[in-house]
Structures are given as structure tokens and as C-alpha cells.
């Protein structure tokens, strides 16, 4: 029996604002508990919310970047439930008239190629506080610093077909939101949170079956694991004659298992109704246009442009545009005169590897990298030598040619010098010479490698091959 998995993600994203959604308190992460609070976010008697215009602007940018219809009029609503870290006894959210609906997120599925996933809706809400169960024995501590922090909830359609695909969707969404600068999307700090609706059906079926909601996926690396565990649980259940019941499953990353949330913790009737303390959120066309103008070129558009302008493969263009800073860096290298494909190769390998080891800092300036690329192209540096120069420039800065000279790695194009290395290599590998002469010509690359080694990377490999061919032919 072949099963198809159907997944839809609900993603909560913290907006990058200085102050909270409905008051002026700071949103900075990591402050001592209950130090960033005021009567409004503490829910004290008599306090009233006032919407944060900056947060609304960022939410609109997010909606536009996802191709959503941004509604000129939306309504804040109260979602009512009791919980100790929810100080008002309700969360201000949006319900039947959200900020934006009907967008698309286009991403590369590892199984199906490009997938256009539906974004059902995007709405603004405030965060709750944080309950800390392990700080005191027999007591729960509540930190309300996070209470009232601005969030958007992005509800994706049931368009994902595997845990790996869900991961790719989330990766692309995260990349997009980071790109447009509306969130730092840091799952460890809780600024990106994801819940997943999961169901299974037999291959070929089109109707949706009963789903469960998987919660508590609190790191990026758990997305695929948690969803696989839940999918496998559902398949095993159905294959053994059972049926899936609609419930919330909590993922336990230590055990890599899911367990149902106790029924007492769920089945809320949230009693949504329009928030009477806030007037309808009315957005003028000018405001929306202003937010649109604040959007940078989006990753997909940038990728397509890189394919068209720089003749990169789609795969290479995807890597180079995966991050806004990297894409801008790449274009800087090309602008500084580097050949586009060579520049892409350098950015994808050396530059990204170096950045990974150094707090994501791209340490070699675009100009310097362009010079290194040019030195390779002009035959002054071998690839191997260029990597050493790159590492040196990354660590200390400076002009690549000067550094190459001081490292003594300028490629030797003097035939006599190269011939000396060639003679040494052939002398040291008599048996290989014999085999080559007997027709094993693929050993040429071995000889070139040995010459490069003997010259400590300084020999011009093309010249070395020519000299080798001459000597071996004689």
C-alpha cells in the first residue's frame, strides 16, 4: 500500500520591531524576567492596547512578499482562553477578517521540483508570555517579557506531500522573511515557530482525511523528524485497522516521539469576537504602496535574474541567492570585474565555507575576490595557490597579488623551471612512466598532480602538461 502524506504548516513569525504590538515596551530578547512590561502587556485593569504602526508595516511587507491580497480593512479579534501566561485572558489576534489572504510560496521540493504552495492567510497577533515549569519545584514561573510581542501567523494550505518537502517550504519561507528583513526567524529564540497539520491518504486519493496538529517543533532540525514520526504513526495506525482522530500531538525531541496533548489542554472554544478596544485596521493604498517600495528584490526574482544575466545554472543561482547578503556579495564580485561563473564557484565554495566558520562574515571584500579570480584566469595563480591567497586575505586583509608574492605562490610559467620539476617527477616514478608509454595515458593527470606537488602549487598546470607530453613522447 502506498501512502501519501498531506501537510500544511502554520508558521508564527516574530516581527522585527523595537516595541511591542500594543504598547511601548521593548522586544529585546534575553532580558531578566518581567522587566520589559507595563500596564498594557501585563493586562492590568483599565489598560488599553494601541496598535504599533511599524509592526503593521512589516506585516504588510510580509504579505506582499508572499503575493497575498492585502485587505484595506481588517479586524482585530479577541481569542479567549485562560492560561497563566496570558495576562488578559485573551489574545488579540485576527479572525474572520485577516490582514491578508491568498498568496503563494514557490519552493523547490526535493521530490517534485518547483511547487507553488498556497498561503491561505496571514494575520497579525500578539504573543503570550512564557510559562517556565522547571525553574521552581512545584510551581510554574511566568515571564511576561514576551507578552504582547508582535507576530504574524502565516497559514499554508495542505499542499506539502512529505516531511522533507515541509522542511524545504519552511526553509524557503524563512529565507524570504529574512530577505525582506521583517524577522530574524531564529527558532532557538522563538522568533519562528511552526505547527503542522498532518494527514495521510492512499496514493491517488484527492479528499483530505482526518488530520492531527503537531506542536512543539522547536528547532529547525526537528521539522522533518517530527513529521516523519507522526506520518509513520498514522500509517501504522491505519494499517492495523485503526483510524486517525483529530487531536494535537506534542513532539518530544529527546525521544523522537509524539504524544497526544491531554484533552484537558485542548478543545477550546475561543469565543472569537471583534476587539472593541481597537478600531478596524484601515490601510490606505499609499501605505501599502510604501511598504511595497520598501521590499527588496525577492529571492525568486533574483534567482531568475542571475540565471538570465550571469548564465548561472538554476542550481547555482539558487545557492548564490539563498541569502540576501550573499547575493549582494556575489553581485559585488561580478561588478568588480570577475567572470560570473568563476565568481559563483568561489562564492559557493571558499567564501561560504569561510563565512560559516566566522559568524557568517564574508571576510574577503568583493574587490579582493574579483582580483583573486582574475589572477587565476590570467594564469598567475593556480587554483590551489589561489585558495591559500584567499585564506590569507580573509585572515589579514590586503591586496591579493602582494600576498601571493609574499607567499611565493605566483605561478611559474618559465618552461625551463617547469621542465626541471617534470624531470624530477618522471625520474621518481619510473614504473608509471613505463605504464604510460604502454598506453595508460590517463596517468597524465597523475603526473600533472605530482608536478604541482613538487612545485608546491607554483607550476602552471597547462604548461606542466605540455612539458610532460613532450618529455613522455620522446
Amino acid at each position, binding site marked *: 500500500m502506498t501512502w501519501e502524506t498531506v501537510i500544511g504548516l502554520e508558521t508564527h513569525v516574530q516581527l522585527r520591531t523595537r516595541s511591542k504590538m500594543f504598547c511601548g515596551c521593548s522586544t529585546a530578547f534575553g532580558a531578566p524576567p518581567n522587566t520589559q512590561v507595563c500596564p498594557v502587556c501585563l493586562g*492590568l485593569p*483599565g*489598560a*488599553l492596547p494601541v496598535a504599533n504602526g511599524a509592526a503593521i508595516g512589516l506585516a504588510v511587507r510580509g504579505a506582499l512578499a508572499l503575493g497575498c491580497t492585502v485587505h484595506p480593512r481588517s479586524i482585530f479579534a479577541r481569542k479567549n482562553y485562560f492560561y497563566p501566561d496570558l495576562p488578559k485572558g485573551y489574545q488579540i489576534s485576527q479572525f474572520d477578517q485577516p490582514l491578508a489572504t491568498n498568496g503563494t510560496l514557490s519552493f523547490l521540493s526535493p521530490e517534485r521540483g518547483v511547487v507553488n504552495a498556497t498561503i491561505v492567510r496571514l494575520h497579525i497577533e500578539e504573543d503570550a508570555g512564557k510559562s517556565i515549569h522547571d525553574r521552581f519545584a512545584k510551581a510554574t514561573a511566568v515571564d511576561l517579557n514576551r507578552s504582547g510581542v508582535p507576530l504574524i501567523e502565516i497559514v499554508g494550505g495542505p499542499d506539502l506531500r512529505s516531511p522533507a518537502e515541509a522542511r524545504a517550504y519552511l526553509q524557503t519561507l524563512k529565507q524570504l522573511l529574512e530577505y525582506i528583513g521583517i524577522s530574524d526567524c531564529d527558532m532557538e529564540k522563538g522568533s519562528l515557530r511552526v505547527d503542522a497539520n498532518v494527514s495521510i491518504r492512499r496514493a491517488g486519493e484527492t479528499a483530505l482525511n482526518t488530520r492531527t496538529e503537531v506542536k512543539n517543533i522547536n528547532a529547525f532540525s526537528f521539522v522533518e523528524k517530527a513529521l516523519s514520526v507522526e506520518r509513520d504513526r498514522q500509517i501504522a495506525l491505519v494499517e492495523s485497522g485503526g483510524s486517525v482522530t483529530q487531536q494535537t500531538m506534542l513532539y518530544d525531541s529527546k525521544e523522537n516521539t509524539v504524544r497526544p496533548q491531554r484533552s484537558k489542554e485542548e478543545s477550546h472554544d475561543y469565543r472569537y469576537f471583534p476587539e*472593541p478596544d481597537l478600531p478596524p485596521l484601515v490601510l490606505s493604498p499609499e501605505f501599502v504602496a510604501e511598504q511595497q517600495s520598501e521590499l527588496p528584490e525577492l529571492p525568486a526574482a533574483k534567482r531568475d535574474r542571475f540565471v538570465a544575466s550571469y548564465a548561472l545554472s538554476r542550481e547555482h543561482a539558487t545557492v548564490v541567492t539563498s541569502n540576501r547578503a550573499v547575493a549582494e556579495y556575489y553581485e559585488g564580485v561580478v561588478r568588480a570585474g570577475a567572470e560570473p561563473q568563476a565568481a559563483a564557484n568561489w562564492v559557493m565554495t571558499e567564501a561560504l565555507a569561510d563565512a560559516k566558520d566566522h559568524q557568517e562574515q564574508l571576510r574577503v571584500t568583493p574587490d579582493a575576490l574579483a582580483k583573486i579570480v582574475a589572477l587565476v584566469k590570467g594564469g598567475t595563480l593556480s587554483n590551489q595557490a589561489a585558495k591559500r591567497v584567499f585564506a590569507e586575505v580573509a585572515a589579514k586583509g590586503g591586496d591579493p597579488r602582494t600576498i601571493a608574492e609574499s607567499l611565493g605562490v605566483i605561478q611559474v610559467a618559465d618552461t625551463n623551471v617547469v621542465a626541471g620539476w617534470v624531470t624530477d617527477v618522471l625520474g621518481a616514478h619510473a614504473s608509471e612512466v613505463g605504464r604510460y608509454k604502454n598506453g595508460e595515458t590517463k596517468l597524465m593527470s597523475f603526473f600533472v598532480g605530482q608536478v604541482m606537488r613538487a612545485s608546491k602549487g607554483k607550476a602552471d598546470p597547462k604548461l606542466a602538461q605540455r612539458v610532460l607530453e613532450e618529455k613522455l613522447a620522446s
Partner: protein
Amino acid sequence: MSDAKAVADRLAKAKRLNALLTPLKDLRKSLAAQSAAARPTGVLYGMPVVAKDNICTLEFTTSCGSRILEGYRSPYDATAIAKLKAAGALIAGKTNCDEFAMGSSTEHSAYGRVLHPLDKARVPGGSSGGSAALVAAGAVPAALGSETGGSVRQPASFCGVVGIKPTYGRVSRYGLVAFGSSLDQIGVFGRSVHDAARVLSVISGRDPRDATCEDRDPLRLPTVPESLQGFVVGLPREYFPPELDPAVRRACERAIRLMKEQGAAVREVSLPHTAYAVPTYYVIAPAEASSNLARFDGVRYGPRFNGSADVRALYRSTRGQGFGPEVRRRILVGTYVLSSGYYDAYYRRAQQMRALIAQDFRNVFDRGVDLLFTPTTPTPAFKAGEKLGDPISMYLSDIFTVTANLAGLPAMSIPIGRVKGLPIGGQFIGQAFLEDEMLEAAYALERVVPAEDEAS
């Protein structure tokens, strides 16, 4: 300007009314400090003003007449309080009220009922009964109350003082403990139209802390008009039903005659959806209240009842014992009407009806009527205990007042006569943000109406 001691002495004399919740010792101390700090240039310099116990003040506790907030001290002043202080007024204590402003008699207070200043067997009205009683007793010239469905006008009428509910959005609600957020407004009581109006003027105006408060300058006080020439006063026939108390009817008729004599044109009008106002109100107000009162859970402030072993048990005991029966009743009603499956039948329909009620008023005002005149309440002050066992009959005492809250319009009650010594109030309902016109008419009527006389 009254000095702090004299203010406290006058309030001490009214102690028997149980209208003031602030202990006199605390009051004297605070008044002395406030008096020393008050700005002599303020337009209300030295004027003592008491505030209903659901308006947050730094000085005194803010308990909302409830056990669940017993001893609660707000860390901030309501905007209206801050504005009064800035104008030099003295906050002369907090007044008893129906718990969380839910009631029409001030019998639903956890701190005991307030006595009517003229007849201790009767109620002063509510929910702002403490404020009304203290103004009526001459203890203070003015007081703050709050309205959700008539909680200023009804007790003003019962106690024989002036009570004004401004247009929704005229006065900031920041620091008013919410009951029905879309209906709530802080209102004022005064011994005269002028006393009430000048306090209203000070507390009105924009507030960046309240998104529902209009971005407008403070209300400008009108001058007392020479006559009512040019005023068209509408008399909605639904507010003069056949079963109206005859004394109330006589007092209204006399007031109407006096307005005509001053040059007003009087016209009978109709507000056809009036009959639905009370049921509409008793869906919307409890719905909002059920959510607004969710924060009182014993977790962060206020007393906890019977331990806290389990958080659900904490909620149950705190809310079960902290709230009185009327508050619990309304929370249950409100929770019910917002529940999935019932929302459309109750809450949504009530909102639709509310829109029709507001449209009734616009229709009348669009046809040349400047303001409306009605009785404030169907009867004078009733006896304590008379309606306690019958919530519906209690709710119906707001029948003429809830419409202005539903429509967001300014309205006020002024004394227009007495029956067997008990005051009768007449109500003006004005157009949105045209409090000045309403006040002009009230000034003119106040000048000529024999408010202390038996209606005949």
C-alpha cells in the same frame, strides 16, 4: 477653593450613606498632599472630585466594588484622573458602586449598598450610586462615574443631580476598568449643569493611550443661551409609553412646556427599534464583559481564594468566590452568547440590531431635530431589595438610557421635579460630539425648571 480639611469634613458627614470606599484617615492624608501639590493656575484648582471605584487612581485602592480586587492599587492614574489633577482638582476618594459597574441600584457592591441621601430605605440608582449620592448630599460639587448602559444618568435622576454621559470617544477610557468596552464611557455628576460640564470639559479630548478616543480638542463650554429659539426638540413616542409613572410623565410635560416657553420647537418623533434596546444591550455588554473580566484570575494581582494547588482550581475558587452573583450571571450569559454555534444567533444579531438602533437616531437627527428629550427612568428611586430577586425588572430600569450607549451618543439627565420628595430626571440625547448644543438646552431648562417642587 476649599481647603483639604474642609473637603474631608464634608465627606465625613456623609459617611452614613456608605458612598465613599476610601477610609477617612487615608483621605485626609492624601488630600493634604494633593492640596500642597495642586497647580494654582488649573481651571479646577481646589475643586474636590470623587471618582467611582472602577477608575484607576494612584492615590487610593481601585476595587471596582468587588472582592476580587480588594486592596488593589493601580500603578497608574486613569487619563481622566491625570487630566483632573493637571487642572488642579483634588481627587477626594473613591466611591462605592455596583460590582464592576454591573447593576442599577448600587446594591451589588461587595462593600455594602449605598443609601439614597433623601430616603435611606431607597437605592440611589447605579451603578455609579456612590458618586451620585455624594454629589446629592452636598459632600462634593462634582464626581466621576462611568456608563455602560445608563450608570451615570439613572443614579443622577434618582438622586436629583446632573449626570452627563459624553459621546463614545469624547473621553479617554484609559484607566477605566472595562465592562463593555464598546459602550463604556466615563461620565460626570454635578450639582449643576455648569459644575458637571466644566469637569467634563477638563477630562475630554484626545489620548494616545486609547485607540477608541477621538482625536479632538477638549469640549468647549457653551455659554448659557438667552432662549431656546431655533432649537428643535424631538420627543420619541417610544419613551412615553402608557404605563409610564404618572408623576414622571407630569414632570416631563412640565419641562417640555417650559422649553416651549423659551422658544424651542417641539416635535414628536419615533425611534422604532427602541423595544429591542434592552435585550440587545444584555447580549453585547455581557459578551464583552465575559472577556474583559477574564484577567481577574488570581494569578497576577488581587486576592487568591482557597489555595492554588492546581491552576484550574485557582481560577475556579478565585473567580467563584471573588465575583458576586450578578457579575457571575453576566459572565455566564456573555460566555454563552459568544460560544461557537450561538454567536450568530445572539452576538451577531445583537450587533445588527445595534446598528438599526443607531440608524433610528440618525434618521431623526437628519430630519431637522437637534436633540431629544425623554424621561431618564420610568420611575423615581425604588426601594432597596425591591428588584434584587428579579434581574429583568432591574434591567428594565435602564430602558430609556441604554439606547444612547448603544448608539454612542451624548446624553444627560437633569432634575426636573419631585414626587413625594423623590427626584425625577429628564434626559437629553444629543448628536455625536455635539455636547455643546445639548448643554445649552440643559442650561436653559435648568434655569427655569422648579427641580425641587412636586411635579403637578
